[in-house]
């Protein structure tokens, strides 16, 4: 049997392996690096960085739910300056592949973050987390409205120029994810990240009030995997040429395989790392085995396989 080609691409960025961290679920990378070598996975996707340092939301910031969890971190982070000086510099030094996630409160903030990252060496791609509230438009989430989503991506595209792939991260909390996906691609995104967390709430039985400091939170973990698979499948069906970084509830190689069959070219792992610090390595090894066992000679062949007519066998 020939060697499996496990590499993948997102736009013009190439990665030797298809498993990534999920934004906000690997901090600055240092913390996971004591459990495995960051270079062994596809890439680290950094937590979404904003212009200024941010303290995030009030605690409690998490609630465990059946096969999932809610979080309301509120994008706590050091701000772009400290991020570039410390976190990014460290990651570059480690020779890890890096996807930087950015978030803003206004379309202008996204663009100015992109400007700061333009030309910074060692970055493979930019993930644009538009699943955050737009302070200029009644706190509506950018990714929930076509125009605001497009405005952000256009601004980033214009600022960053043509080289660095832009991956727009979408929220599943919309009536029609395909139209948002198409819109951000038209606006200049090279790829899509699907899905961010699903809006949820847990009420504390003791206080009888919303448990999270932020009242609502984002649902992640295996509970949401069927929603992620559906979103990836729908978008890949409509836009088969657009690369997708899939995520949502992946905690095994079989889960990652499911997202890839649906249309993901790469898979981010978030919540699973909380439950198991070596989850990413486990998932990556299991996925390699599954692809080999199924007779695929490359990861690429498996991407979107679920869309082929039943008659096309392996």
């Amino acid at each position, binding site marked *: 049997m020939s060697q499996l080609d496990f590499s993948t691409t997102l736009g013009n960025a190439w990665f030797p392996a298809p498993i990534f961290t999920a934004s906000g679920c690997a901090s600055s990378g240092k913390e996971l690096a004591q459990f495995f070598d960051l270079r062994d996975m596809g890439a680290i996707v950094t937590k979404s960085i904003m212009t200024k340092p941010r303290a995030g939301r009030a605690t409690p910031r998490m609630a465990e739910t059946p096969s999932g969890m809610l979080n309301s971190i509120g994008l*706590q982070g050091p701000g772009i300056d400290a991020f570039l000086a410390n976190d990014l510099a460290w990651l570059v030094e480690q020779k890890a592949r890096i996807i930087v996630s950015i978030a803003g409160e206004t379309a202008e903030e996204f663009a100015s973050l992109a400007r700061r990252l333009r030309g910074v060496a060692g970055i493979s791609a930019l993930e644009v987390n538009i699943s955050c509230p737009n302070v200029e438009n009644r706190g509506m989430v950018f990714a929930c409205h076509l125009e605001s989503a497009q405005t952000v991506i256009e601004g980033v595209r214009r600022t960053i120029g043509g080289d660095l792939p832009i991956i727009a991260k979408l929220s599943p909390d919309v009536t029609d994810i395909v139209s948002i996906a198409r819109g951000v691609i038209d606006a200049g995104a090279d790829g899509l990240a699907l899905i961010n967390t699903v809006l949820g709430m847990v009420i504390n039985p003791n206080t009888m009030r919303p448990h999270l400091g932020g009242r609502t939170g984002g649902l992640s973990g295996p509970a949401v995997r069927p929603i992620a698979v559906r979103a990836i499948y729908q978008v890949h069906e409509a836009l088969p040429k657009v690369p997708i970084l899939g995520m949502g509830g992946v905690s095994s190689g079989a889960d990652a395989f499911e997202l890839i069959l649906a249309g993901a070219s790469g898979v981010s792992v978030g919540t699973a790392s909380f*439950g198991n610090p070596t989850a990413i390595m486990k998932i990556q090894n299991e996925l390699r085995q599954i692809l080999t066992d199924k007779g695929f000679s490359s990861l690429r062949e498996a991407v979107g396989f679920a869309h082929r007519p039943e008659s096309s066998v392996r």
Partner: protein
Amino acid sequence: MVGLAMAGINRSAAQLLATIVGNKKVGQYHQILISVGDLVAQCKPGNFVAISVGGPNSKMVLRRAFAISRTTTSTQYGGAIELIVAPHGNGSSWLCGLVEGEQIDITLPLGTAFGIPTTNVNALLVGGGYGSAPLFGLAEVLKERGCRVDMLLGASTGSKIYAPLEGKRSVNSLRIFTEDGSMGETGRITSPIAQLVSELQIDVIYSCGPMAMLKAISEILDGGDVVHQCAVEEAMACGIGICMTCVLPVKDEAGKINNLRSCIDGPVMDGAAIEWDLVGKTLVL
């Protein structure tokens, strides 16, 4: 005098499949012994472990944190750690239901340890509920350093006092408070602190227990020069510093308040640096 261990990432942390070698009910708690081999040498009083709960078909996706109560080595099973677990919700109850020989996925040692003074000081150890767990091991270490060690334990009721007999030997005095008076003196554990501090010329308080207790101690000590090393307990999703759920508002030397992760900048923190009134509030930088 007493340096606070601000270790950041605990470099000794490892993940392993460990075997349960003991599980005994003590009052309302379970004393659980877990074989972890040579890792015991890395476990310091104050460190904690994070345990995967519920088995292979579990709907619980997050680990549970438990303070390391003691470490032992035996010819029978090598190095082992002891946990004192209150069967509270689904995760801890599952753990308390395990029997000898069963295996668990565990990450340890995690977090900061209690800072140990380099000179002989007078220490007061204050434990609420299962919070007393790490204090007995700490007391031994302090005694070895030649410290005077006094201990206060408290809980709502007597069966929630965890006070091993052997542990008592390693302290100069032990006083127990229960709110319902079912064991020891009646009242709150915090009531005698101010008096003890001056009577016994306490240099450092080591505390572990509910957040409200830690806060109350900090308030009692406010303005004085008694060091307060407290082991906090914030809800933790990961225990290893990657999720940002476990933060507490802590003032740095320049007086700037920041949300620090209690899993890697804690659980042992400087009680005077924690902005207790801002816990659970939105912080604006």
